[in-house]
């Protein structure tokens, strides 16, 4: 059927070359293989993102199809290691969204002062930028010595990097601007030493940080927290998995505990919205109330 539109030309029809059902089948088979052979479960990740990341790995390996990538990663653990980095490293920045940290300082820190001891969970901490940002903030607010930060990620390689506390020197200008706009009280450069092309952060910032491997998809709660940070991690999950992780967070928060999400993430599309109240008009800061 050909449809004519106002300029008299016909509209293009569906193409024959691309088969999205076949592509979905290949992706599902690959993810099933990864789960059964290596134990990493990416089967409930947001489809558009994982498709994009898989095709980047296909190109990186010099292959042509998702099925070829499946064969390679099943037979070559090094290729799996590369894929794991592609699929699990969430790109972030120190004091990403400065207005969020400003709001945290102004609105949440006074609440935290009422606790004798504060347990904070950075779920999906990736390479640690947000953990160091929070350590700096708490240090400046005089709260750090009664806080313990649990920084977890599925990927051991990124945790190693987070432990080292070395971030690219060429990002420091951006991070300094973020830090100042986030209400930073000192000179940002006091927190690191430039070394080659890296900025080595003061080791004392991690004195109350526990880094450990934890898989949000398969592992259970391991403590009760006053604050859970999970910013821009759930965006990589589909809605079903997001709800499962929200259930884990709900179970892991003390009553009146704080949940901090990324600035374009919302509880609105999850089934846990009624259990929380919004603490800020502009930032995604929620408090467990029932």
């Amino acid at each position, binding site marked *: 059927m050909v449809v004519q539109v106002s300029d008299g030309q016909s509209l*293009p029809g569906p193409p024959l070359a691309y088969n999205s059902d076949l592509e979905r089948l290949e992706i599902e088979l690959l993810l099933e293989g990864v789960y059964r052979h290596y134990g990493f479960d990416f089967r409930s990740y947001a489809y558009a993102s994982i498709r994009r990341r898989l095709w980047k790995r296909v190109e990186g390996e010099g292959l042509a199809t998702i099925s070829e990538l499946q064969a390679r990663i099943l037979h070559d653990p090094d290729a799996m290691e590369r894929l794991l980095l592609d699929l699990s490293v969430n*790109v972030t920045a120190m004091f990403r969204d400065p207005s969020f940290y400003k709001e945290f300082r102004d609105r949440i820190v006074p609440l935290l002062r009422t606790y004798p001891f504060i347990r904070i969970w950075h779920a999906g901490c990736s390479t640690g930028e947000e953990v160091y940002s929070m350590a700096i903030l708490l240090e400046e607010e005089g709260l750090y010595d009664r806080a313990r930060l649990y920084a977890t990620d599925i990927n051991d390689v990124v945790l190693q990097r987070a432990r080292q506390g070395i971030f690219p020197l060429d990002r420091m200008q951006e991070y300094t601007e973020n830090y100042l706009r986030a209400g930073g009280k000192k000179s940002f450069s006091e927190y690191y030493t430039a070394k080659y092309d890296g900025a080595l952060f003061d080791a004392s910032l991690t004195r109350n940080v526990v880094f450990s491997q934890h898989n949000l998809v398969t592992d259970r709660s391991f403590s009760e927290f006053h604050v859970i940070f999970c910013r821009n991690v759930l965006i990589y999950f589909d809605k079903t998995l997001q709800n499962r992780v929200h259930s884990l967070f709900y179970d892991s928060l003390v009553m009146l505990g704080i949940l901090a999400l990324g600035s374009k993430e919302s509880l609105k599309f999850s089934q846990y919205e009624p259990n929380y109240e919004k603490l800020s008009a502009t930032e995604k800061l929620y408090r467990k109330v029932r």
Partner: protein
Amino acid sequence: MMAIAPGVGYDLVVVGTSWGGLAALRTLVGGLPDSFQMAVTLVQHRHKDSDHLLRTLLQERSSLQVCEVEDKMPLEHGRIYVAPPNYHTLIEPGHFSLSTDAPVRFSRPSIDVTFSSAADSYAHRTVGIVLTGANADGADGLRRISDRGGLALVQDPKTAESPTMPEAAQKAVPRARVMSLSAITRFVTSLPAGQPEREHA
């Protein structure tokens, strides 16, 4: 996912622009009638910490609801969605997903990323539009839309505040229709709208 039945209607309009984009988007959005049926997604390059001003300025021009995209927000017909700064906006069947993956061609949001995901999810039911801009983002994505059977429209570079982006899109997609902004608005309004998308989990 069910196979997409070959239909003739369009469900989704994706628009990419950078330099000069605000004025162009205000014209485009202002020209859409209240009865407009497709979901419109706008990707405008902007500073990573910019606020809701773009949404507000566009809402002034339209009685269609304009919202800034949040993760997993449903895609509804007759609404206008603005890609948020500092994320990539990906389109899934029936909803949005966001990503903080590295910028593409120095851009986040990347027009290519949104256009490609639109092409993958909505195929021939997609209309891609590249407007004024000072770089080549959007050209690859528009080609993908065209290759998947969607409709490719490009603002006539002679009428664009900055011709680089439409020129690159025109070069990448020779069969794209090239027209002025007001002609694009009229043309999109004349297209048949598809059936509302059933949401996939």
